[in-house]
């Protein structure tokens, strides 16, 4: 990992929405005026005391923030004695980090007078969080979800319906997250007047990558305070799983200028990054344009986007947020991967050792640590983002393990 102490890693995006050369606004003209408006309103909100205090109120009273930072002693014993702290965003209302961003964006949507919310979802966690906040604020909610994901995340589909959301199954492509995002964008293009698109990860056109990062950065802000309180020092490592990259940036952002903290992002290795079935866009992709931004993408030589693969619906995306592409190129964050199999073992291990059933997504982050336990030592402190709980995954996993639930 390169160390460059002269760089301020927190100055991006620039006014064109670029993180270095990544990011930007690559959308159809119909959406441009609205994107500019969202950006303008977000700037206002960011500096508004009223908005900030509302956000704080819902973070604390509705989501249950701050989430604990928990020393996982039994898992630590598997990591060559390094101290593993779990940032427990899985304890948030609705069971993942996603709701931090949903509350933020939906408060903004209301400030803009929008009555109808659309969102894409993969694992269903972002859809669930969006549906939840829409129920809270009495807004119409339409969730786009790939048919494949509807099957593997059935509990979340049921919950979203209970909350009053309309689920739009997406059949196009491989019927997963990328395709759901296409459909949500098409809906937005068709309903710009009354609709706000709540993007669930730090991707999409500017200002979304910035906005989502900002709303999620509460994770790292809290973790920093907590670790300083418990250990009187910063951690040696941060680690998080990467789908589009929102939970990871959420944890990383506060620490980007703490140059001695090593940062690891774990992509979904699927059946192996050297197979064709994975979702490791940074490891194996090439920069290109999709969903409104310039970033690393899994694609063929003709620029057609390839299908991603991961056991975890939330990581099953052929792109990645543009800020990660930049952090990779500049060398501030090291990006690695864990396979389906490794994630599944970590999932079981975490459940047995800590009494915490993790979601499959953060199981990837844990899997990487376990796999590389020898690299750590007693002197190390690691913070891992436990960004979701496994309730949504138990049916899909029991299927895999051949157990009938």
């Amino acid at each position: 990992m390169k160390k460059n102490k002269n760089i301020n890693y927190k100055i991006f995006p620039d006014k064109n929405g670029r993180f270095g050369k990544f990011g930007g606004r690559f959308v159809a003209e119909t959406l441009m005026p609205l994107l500019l408006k969202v950006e303008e309103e977000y700037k206002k909100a960011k500096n508004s005391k009223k908005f900030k205090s509302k956000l704080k109120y819902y973070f604390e009273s509705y989501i249950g923030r701050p989430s604990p930072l928990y020393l996982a002693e039994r898992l630590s014993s598997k990591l060559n004695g390094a101290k593993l702290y779990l940032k427990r965003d899985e304890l948030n209302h609705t069971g993942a980090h996603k709701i931090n961003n949903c509350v933020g964006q939906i408060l903004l949507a209301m400030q803009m007078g929008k009555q109808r919310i659309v969102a894409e979802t993969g694992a269903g966690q972002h859809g669930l969080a969006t549906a939840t906040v829409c129920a809270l604020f009495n807004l119409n909610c339409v969730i786009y979800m790939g048919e494949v994901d509807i099957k593997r995340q059935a509990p979340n589909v049921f919950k979203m319906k209970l909350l009053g959301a309309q689920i739009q199954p997406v059949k196009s492509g491989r019927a997963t997250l990328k395709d759901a995002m296409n459909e949500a964008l098409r809906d937005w293009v068709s309903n710009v007047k009354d609709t706000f698109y709540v993007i669930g990860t730090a991707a999409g056109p500017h200002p979304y990558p910035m906005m989502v990062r900002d709303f999620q950065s509460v994770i790292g802000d809290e973790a920093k305070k907590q670790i300083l309180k418990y250990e009187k020092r910063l951690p040696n490592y941060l680690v998080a799983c990467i789908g589009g990259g929102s939970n990871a940036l959420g944890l990383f952002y506060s620490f980007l200028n703490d140059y001695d903290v090593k940062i690891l992002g774990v992509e979904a290795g699927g059946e192996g990054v050297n197979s064709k079935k994975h979702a490791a866009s940074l490891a194996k992709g090439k920069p290109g344009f999709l969903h409104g931004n310039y970033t690393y993408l899994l694609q063929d030589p003709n620029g057609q986007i390839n299908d991603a693969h991961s056991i975890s619906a939330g990581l099953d995306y052929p792109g990645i947020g543009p800020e990660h592409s930049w952090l990779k190129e500049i060398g501030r964050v090291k990006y690695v991967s864990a396979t389906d199999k490794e994630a599944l073992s970590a999932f079981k291990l975490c459940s047995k050792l800590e009494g915490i059933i993790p979601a499959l997504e953060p199981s990837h982050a844990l899997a990487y640590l376990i796999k590389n336990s020898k690299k750590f030592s007693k002197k190390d402190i690691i913070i891992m983002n436990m960004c979701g709980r496994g309730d949504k995954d138990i049916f899909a996993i029991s299927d895999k393990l051949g157990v009938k639930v």
Partner: protein
Amino acid sequence: MNIMINRIEKTFEKLKADGDKALVSFITAGDPNMEKSEQILCDLPKYGVDIIEVGIPFSDPMADGPTIQKSSNRAISAGSNLSKTLKIINKFRRVNSKTPIVLMGYFNPIFQFGLEKFFNSCKKIGVDGIIVVDLPPEENELINVYTKRYGVHNIRLITPTTDKKRLRKILKFTSGFLYYVSITGITGTKKPSVLEVKKAVSRIKANTNLPVVVGFGIDNYKQAAALNKISDGCVIGSAIIKIIESYKEYSKSKISKKIEDFLIKFSKDNK
């Protein structure tokens, strides 16, 4: 604005002299396969089409409805891509040196092909303009030098959400003609309101001398005739793609005949 004279200017000049409006049609290169697509492309001018938009297939056409999505998928399955798209245009140019060709698509396939190589090929082969759907004026810098260097018109979309300030910004980077998107939405889904479109097009025309064509959701000649009272032409996209979809198993000459039957009405009423 660029001062370039190519087939596009010549076509609009001639239409104007004849008191005619442009019939613009859209097909995806390689739908339903390369061979049939080439035939359709070569036949379109015979059916009264004045300008042809050729779609570059893309896996994730964000601004397109189901009809063009499926068309793009059929083309990709048939092995189509940007270099094959350029190949069939090259063949088209051997039999037709007059009809303007406008390539329409998304930025990623063009970017991966290589921008310099792409625009150079456009010039060599005889592509007169491009429409990059997901490249707003804010990102125009990426292609600006190439469109100028190789004399390819940078045609832009104006939509019902474009306000006056943006209109000026768009006009700055547009040449050839303007494409007014008649609905707030994706291709082939809603029907345009003639009244609204007329208002919008007159507003645009008050700001520019460029020809304005109207597209998205036009599928019958009455609608086209009404819109042409104010616009300089209409684009027929999804309606032609639907014919290709319905008759994709037919021989290439039979598909072409079906398109002729459909388009002939437009020509009669327009001309």
